[in-house]
């Protein structure tokens, strides 16, 4: 997760101040009606307030101080729940705002209007933000630069690294007038230069949409939130029935025992508020908003809460090979000398050919040779032959000595012109290297074939462990790559993914997703190219790279500002964490009721059935202090759990069963025990004060 911007503190002063104000503003009945559980508390507060005023003027026979205290605590319960929601919203908003500054943009060199394009890469340009590019603007891109937008090539021919989109690590040739004359934003130009006509405008801000979403008023409830609300509502109705029935029950008991009095309205309302699931009811929307906030913290913008929830359920991850599983650039891993050539000689020639080659492949050859203890230096008397789309080879000329390196096809043709033929043994090695999923590079020193350099896609360190963890969580990983099946299989085996899709095309990606969905899986994928759009739209959780095209962003439900392909794993984590927090606090809330009964039942019927004091296992001081302690505990627990709701329950990947047992122990058993202690402590405090 990115830690680039200031981590927001729970106790950030401004947020707290705003949240306090907001909690009073949320007392508006329209806002309260959205949360049915807390609305009951709200009604209870109003009702007990009326009762306390009545008792002050003698219109209602109950101790004024007691009724007043109850009503006060109930108002606080409502305010605490409002506060929880307000602070979650405040934090998420602050995070969203801080992201605005962070949004990554690339520089674009816009061709100044009226320039003569035949000047090629010498045209006059002005440097602007890529977001400001308009459709039909002309842009000059030079070797080594990132192409700032999707577009059509007007002038030039060049090799482009499109691995970020296609997953294929070998560069592709793009040029004006070719079949392939369009380029995609976010890809890198490796050689030559291009002049491109932009054909798609860069984005309107998703962040504004996100800010709207974190305001719970405009946030639509997710299906799971709705289902949970139904459960909480039915529990609330059960407890309304239970408390309502206690009135006639108590009347019946009083009639026969001829002592004591019927349980009072204020006690019934106190009991009701204690029993209904206010803890989860008060924190539910805060949990949802905080989940979005945590995504923002990871520099991911979710376009709907539904997607965050689905992320918790995802069980198939489609991961691009390039960038996620491998570093994306082929690196030299081995030298295979030709017969009669020593390995050192081959390495030396390769090294000389690569010393000034600053492509990643070239640099990796230097690194590999250096590792073997071979060092060479070039004096001033040399010419570098860079890779170009025409020659398809690169190398160096040192005082007439010509060293070249290139793909087997190119180099075989080159050798033919020199009347040199590649031996059968060498051809076998070439095929062998290719069958490992690597790319062979032939090195020719003057007229002599020296041997082969193996360029290999290097699997990222630690990725195998990541996949193993995902497997424990029940998530299947599928590698997507443009490589041939052979290469793909080799890398898949090395990285430990469960499955792979080789020679991926937009259609085959889409079909793979549909196939998994038909089997009932929930599929997540990342993408950035326009050709990813159909697959992104089909996936249940689709994360577009911010560096990607507008079409990709439009069809996905999350945008990753860091454009990091491993982000998907973080997103799944956050989705799960949000569901776990919801479930755990629900369990906690229901389990709390056991202790509350033991506090309230003996107190409520103290006058009719004093013998029920046997149930007062906590040894609470008096009926009224027992009732007050239970209601106070009920209010305070909301405040106490706000940090947990915002932070989310700690979650480490483990099997479902272990996780369940762990959480049931903490939040189920803990939920039964905690209030016994809490209520007792509050009761002790109250009895000291009174």
């Amino acid at each position, binding site marked *: 997760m990115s830690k680039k911007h200031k981590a927001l503190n729970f106790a950030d002063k401004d947020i707290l101040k705003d949240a306090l104000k907001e909690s009073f503003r949320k007392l508006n009945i329209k806002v309260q009606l959205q949360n049915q559980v807390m609305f009951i508390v709200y009604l209870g507060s109003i009702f007990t307030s009326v009762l306390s005023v009545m008792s002050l003027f003698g219109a209602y026979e109950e101790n004024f101080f007691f009724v007043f205290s109850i009503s006060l605590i109930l108002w606080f319960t409502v305010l605490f729940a409002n506060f929880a929601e307000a602070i979650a919203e405040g934090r998420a908003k602050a995070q969203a705002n801080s992201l605005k500054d962070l949004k990554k943009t690339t520089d674009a060199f816009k061709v100044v209007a009226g320039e003569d394009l035949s000047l090629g890469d010498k045209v006059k340009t002005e440097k602007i933000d890529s977001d400001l590019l308009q459709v039909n603007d002309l842009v000059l891109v030079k070797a080594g630069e990132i192409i700032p937008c999707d577009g059509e090539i007007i002038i030039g021919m060049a090799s482009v690294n499109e691995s970020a989109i296609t997953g294929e690590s070998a560069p592709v040739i793009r040029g004006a007038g070719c079949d392939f004359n369009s380029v995609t934003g976010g890809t890198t130009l490796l050689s030559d230069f291009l002049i491109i006509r932009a054909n798609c405008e860069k984005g309107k801000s998703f962040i504004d949409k996100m800010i709207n979403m974190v305001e719970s008023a405009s946030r639509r409830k997710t*299906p*799971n939130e*709705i*289902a*949970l609300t*139904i*459960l909480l509502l*039915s529990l609330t109705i*059960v407890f309304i*029935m*239970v408390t*309502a*029935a*206690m*009135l*006639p*029950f108590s*009347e*019946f*008991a009083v009639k*026969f025992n001829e002592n004591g009095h019927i349980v009072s309205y204020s006690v019934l309302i106190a009991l009701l508020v204690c*029993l209904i699931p206010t803890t989860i009811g008060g924190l539910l929307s805060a949990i949802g908003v905080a989940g979005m906030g945590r995504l923002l913290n990871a520099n991911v913008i979710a376009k709907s809460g539904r997607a965050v929830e*689905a992320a*918790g359920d995802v*069980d198939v991850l489609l991961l691009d090979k390039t960038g996620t599983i491998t570093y994306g650039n082929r690196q030299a891993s081995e030298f295979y000398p030709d017969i009669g050539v020593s390995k050192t000689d081959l390495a030396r020639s390769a090294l000389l050919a690569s010393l000034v080659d600053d492509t990643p492949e070239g640099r990796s050859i230097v690194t590999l040779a250096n590792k073997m203890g071979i060092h060479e230096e070039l004096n001033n008397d040399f010419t570098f032959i860079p890779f170009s789309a025409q020659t398809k080879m690169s190398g160096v000329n040192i005082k007439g000595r010509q060293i070249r390196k290139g793909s087997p096809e190119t180099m075989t043709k080159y050798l033919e012109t020199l009347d040199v033929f590649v031996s059968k043994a060498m051809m076998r090695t070439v095929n062998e290297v290719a069958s490992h999923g690597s790319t062979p590079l032939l090195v020719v020193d003057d007229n002599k074939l020296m041997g082969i350099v193996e360029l290999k896609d290097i699997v990222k360190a630690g990725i195998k462990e990541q996949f193993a963890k995902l*497997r424990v*969580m*029940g*998530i*299947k990983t599928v590698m997507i790559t443009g490589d041939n099946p052979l290469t793909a299989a080799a890398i898949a085996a090395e990285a430990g993914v469960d499955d792979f899709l080789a020679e991926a095309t937009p259609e085959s990606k889409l079909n793979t997703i549909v196939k998994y969905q038909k*089997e*009932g*899986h*929930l599929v997540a994928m990342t993408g950035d190219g326009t050709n990813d759009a159909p697959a992104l739209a089909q996936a249940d959780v689709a994360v577009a790279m911010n560096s990607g095209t507008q079409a990709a962003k439009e069809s996905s439900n999350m945008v990753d500002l860091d454009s990091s392909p491993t982000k998907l794993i973080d997103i799944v984590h956050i*989705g*799960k*964490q949000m*569901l*776990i927090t*919801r*479930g*755990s606090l*629900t*369990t906690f809330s*229901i389990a709390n*009721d*056991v202790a509350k*009964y033991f506090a309230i039942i003996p107190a409520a019927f103290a006058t009719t059935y004093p*013998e*029920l004091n*046997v*149930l007062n296992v906590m040894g609470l001081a008096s009926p009224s202090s027992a009732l007050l302690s239970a209601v106070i505990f009920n209010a305070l627990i909301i405040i106490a759990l706000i940090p947990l709701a915002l932070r989310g329950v700690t979650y480490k990947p483990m*099997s*479902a*069963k272990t*996780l*369940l047992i762990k*959480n*049931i122990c903490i939040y*189920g058993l803990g939920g039964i025990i905690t209030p016994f202690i809490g209520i007792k402590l509050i009761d002790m405090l109250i009895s000291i004060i009174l």
Partner: protein
Amino acid sequence: MQNAFLVLAVFMLVLTLLVKPVGLYMAPICKGSAPILFKSFDKKLMRLLGLENCSQTWSEYAGSLVCFNILGLIVLYLMQRFQAYLPLNPEGLGAVDSYTAFNTAISFVTNTNWQSYGGESTMGYFVQMAGLALQNFLSAATGIAVAFVLMRSLVAKQQVLLGNFFSDVVRISLYILLPLAFAYAIFLVSQGCIQNFSSYIDASTLSGVQQTIPMGPVASQEAIKMLGTNGGGFFNANSAHPFENPTDLSNFSQCLAIFVISAALCYTFGVIVNDSRQGWTIYIAMAIIFVTCASLMIVFESAQSPYLLDAGAAPDFYNTEGKEARFPLGQSALFSTVTTSASCGAVNNMHDSLNPLSGMLTMLLMQIGEVVFGGVGSGFYGIFIFIFLAVFISSLMIGRTPEYLGKKLTPAQMKLIAIAVLCTPFLVLAATAIACLFDFNLDSLNNTAAHGFSEYLYAFSSAANNNGSAFAGLNANTPFFNIATGLCMFFGRFIVIICILGCAGAIAKQKIIPSSSGTLPTFGLFFSFLIAGTVILIGALTFLPALALGPVVEHIEVFFN
């Protein structure tokens, strides 16, 4: 007390052994065919009845079920009202009073068998056999049919058709209930149950008192009364009567008969979903609650009532008040727990005389919705309400949106589950509250204060949850109780059934999501405890205040003062 626990242990052992064969036998019927023995017969029968290939959607199924049952209700009502004109009525019993007939009709159609009348003094043989016993079969078959629909829905892949109600009822009655009842009736006759159409016998006892001894086709009715968890006794004394329950062995076998179909349905479920662990998990969850309650019952009942001690009873004896002297503690405690765990409601001792905490156990077992084995079928679909709740919360706790056997629990299902879970507590609490409000009901009470309150609470817990047993202290044959319990029985039965069928309809439409190590494992001992915990927690939270005002107060008064 040791002997009592031994009885319980043997009981559980025999029950567990019976579960697999009976469960396997029922599986093909759930799949919509017949056991091998009846296969060719079934084919002809279904063709004859025109029931081939007419699978119904959930709403058509629910419609057929409710209409069929209401029709049965009307017929049974009329039979009672016109009893005087019906055959096989040697005692010439007259028309049953309209409130009682209304109550009885609902009672037998809903598998409750709440009886506000005395059998031998009210119902002739024809009404008993063609009316009451017929409904004993049909109501049991209805319950099992609903359970089958639920099972099918969980393995259905995006379907809307769930089977045909009528073919289900016919198959369940003919291939499950009838053969079992026939065999069991023969066994009961061997134990000494009577089976005749004679007039009542006048006899003079040893002490010279003239006595009328009622006769009748008892054994045939007794068998289905137990197997179908109906519980409506031929005689007023129910299974405490020597003609209904003659020996220790018949008593033990009756307990088994009450549980056997309900318990075996768990195994059938395992067969249907192709994973017997799922079925055993539910069986064990039920068994955990049952064994706990039965053990507590034995412990509570082993203490002699302080009132009897005051009257000079031997202190080293168990609570003998209201118990049939023929049956020892184990047989009585077992019967009481079994009959209230399952929604049977037959009794071999008077629950009104149980020690207060034992009485509370019987009430609690009913109040949690009759899901500890429960009524045939109804216990199975009833516990699913709690399984869904447990799955819902525990799925969230592992970071998944809730799913059971690859079926997601969406708002559509949760709404229906919520109504089902609210339905019976609402009926019990509301009806008890209303009973408390009207002073004319006090005439019905044998006792006052806490025990009187328990009598109300027991009556409505029994009715709304379709148990049918009673705290004998209450005279329920009044217009108020006949109507109130009648409505409780009707709504408690059919609202839950409609919710379950709707839920099954919604489930069947979904696709099945393959499970992985990230999905909630819904099998194993831990999950059994989780189901049992959910049942107890929800039940306790709903009824604790009411129970505190009844049996808990009474227990403290009786044993601590």
